[in-house]
């Protein structure tokens, strides 16, 4: 589905990604975990075409997309749910969702869009209840649901989720992760970027660990959850003793 080879990305003169290769198979949920500033969001933005200065190859279903503008990448079937939701706060829930299908309205797919709306309301009944409500007044969890719903309106083949659990209460995080599992059952392919490594590895099949712009580890989610380095660095287990262990060698 998605295949990245030797991706480098830059912000000005700063290299944010260094030779990153990664793939997401069809129907797979893959996690990209790493600390703040590791380059996780940069990677998603590079895939979505939001970063101009990049080198390397990005393929979506075998077609090279790294030179395409963002709207063409959305049209190719990749939708990103940005970090911090970034919904259109002054607009209603319904208007937000309709905007997600913007490209398809132009293509006269109005009736299909109507059908998708009901599917999204099925996935997030809360959004239907609040369809007329101003989006900015929703709770954090509801806003995240709206952001995912809006991305789904473009009928993507691949969903890029940027920190879906950020700032949410643990119970709400579980709700969001359950939704991601349901999307998988429907055959959706998902790449999740998360600092909450535990939540994200629990719903994904595989994962990659990004550290200062480089991938330092990959494997099945089960293996990563049991990996010593991952536990210490990302699952919040005895980080201090880890450092002492290292220095003591």
């Amino acid at each position: 589905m998605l295949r990245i080879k030797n991706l480098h990305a830059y912000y000005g003169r700063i290299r944010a990604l260094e030779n990153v290769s990664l793939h997401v198979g069809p129907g797979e949920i893959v996690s990209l975990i790493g600390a703040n500033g590791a380059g996780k969001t940069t990677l998603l933005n590079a895939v979505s075409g939001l970063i101009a200065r990049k080198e390397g190859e990005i393929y979506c279903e075998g077609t090279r997309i790294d030179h395409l503008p963002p709207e063409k990448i959305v049209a190719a079937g990749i939708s990103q749910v940005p970090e911090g939701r970034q919904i259109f706060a002054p607009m209603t829930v319904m208007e937000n969702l309709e905007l997600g299908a913007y490209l398809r309205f132009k293509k006269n797919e109005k009736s299909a869009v109507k059908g998708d709306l009901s599917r999204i309301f099925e996935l997030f009944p809360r959004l239907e209840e609040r369809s007329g409500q101003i989006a900015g007044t929703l709770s954090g969890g509801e806003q995240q649901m709206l952001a995912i719903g809006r991305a789904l309106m473009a009928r993507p083949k691949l969903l890029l989720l940027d920190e879906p659990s950020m700032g949410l209460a643990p119970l709400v995080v579980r709700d969001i992760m359950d939704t991601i599992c349901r999307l998988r059952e429907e055959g959706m392919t998902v790449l999740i970027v998360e600092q909450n490594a535990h939540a994200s590895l629990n719903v994904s099949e595989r994962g990659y660990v990004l550290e200062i712009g480089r991938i330092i580890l990959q494997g099945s989610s089960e293996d990563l959850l049991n990996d010593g380095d991952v536990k210490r660095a990302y699952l919040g287990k005895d980080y201090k003793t880890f450092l002492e262990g290292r220095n003591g060698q």
Partner: protein
Amino acid sequence: MKTGNDSQGHTSRDDLEQLQLEQLQSTLNRAYKNVPFYKKRFDDHEIDPGAVNSVEDLKRLPFTTRKDLADNYPYDMFAVPLRDIVRISPSAGTTAKPFVVGFTRGDLKARQDITARFLSAGKTTDTDIVQICLNPGLAGWGRALKEGAEHIGASVMPMTQMSTSKQLMAMKDYRTSVLITTPSYAMHMLRVMETIGLNPDTLALRAIFTVGGPVPSDWRDRLEGALAVSLTAGYGLSDVTAPGIGFECGEKTGFHVSEDHFIFEIVDPQSGQPCLPEAEGEVVLTTLTGRAFPLIRFRTGDVAALVSGTCPCGRAFSRISEITGSTGPVLTVAGIKVDPVQIEQILQTLSGTASPRFMIRLYKEDYLDVMEIWLEMTEDLFSDEVKRVENDLKRLRRRVFQTLGLEVAIRLVERSTLDEADLPVGGVKDER
């Protein structure tokens, strides 16, 4: 019936190459970050591990040798803190110093998958009874194979020290269906069966897996014919890797390399340049999934060739030929790697600082590898007390066994005998 996971062998070459690229890049990043030896080696060669853009780029990286492993004895080649290591596997090494291979929990799981894949390729299933007959020098492999067979769900009889006739008795009485051993021990067992009059028809044996040395084709024919079994050979390095990292499929046209865990290259031993397919050279190995003990372009000392073309079995994994020899002084005796230098050091414990004159004779006795050390009789060694000389020799034999896990014979010879052999000190007369 449950078999081991063989799925990766059947992915497309394209997917496999993407996977290898990803694994190679992260392995290099980890090794550079966590192992001072690799960081220094890369820096010395002005190589940025972040600039490796393809598996082909690997050939720009420097080699790692057994000496490097020994120089970093015991733990300096480890890429994870010791507390993540759950198994420590000492290896006699092949130089002055031994070396130590460590495994994380994940590494042991990967090794189990690799050995299970080897055993599955020869159709081992959860209904099999597996008997492992290896010598003590291959104890690490014995454990790896036991874990792989158990992973498949087979009933496993782990390696135990018993006489060959006892092993055969167990094979018959326990209805062993799968035998794992070295090629020469398999031949030896066949010989003993003939001697004690054990009729192969009374055995339930169905398959033999061999590790630790090449299988001559006439041996394969004899074993398969006399015992009505299918023989599947595996390749590995007894001192650093699991057995069966290269494995035969049903076609038996070379060893498929588990390329989702390793990259194999064949290079010219002198120039270090890659060899063309079908041309013989040294096998060079890079680990892709190893966490504790990453090896980057490790020179194995084994000589083989890449087999070109795709295998009719459909696996994407490329193949190497049977091992046809070794590049350096390192010998393979009964599957165990031995450097004559190691023998010299043991002999020195008797003679003090002086270098003893000796040679090594290798021959086969009932198909088993025998190593004989011919040591020059000097005045230091010579004593009127036969008992003392005998004790000295016994001590030397014990030292060799403790270091290498190998039984040897030591013969005291006259200077003229060594002169006749016309070999350098520690020279090898290989009559196998």
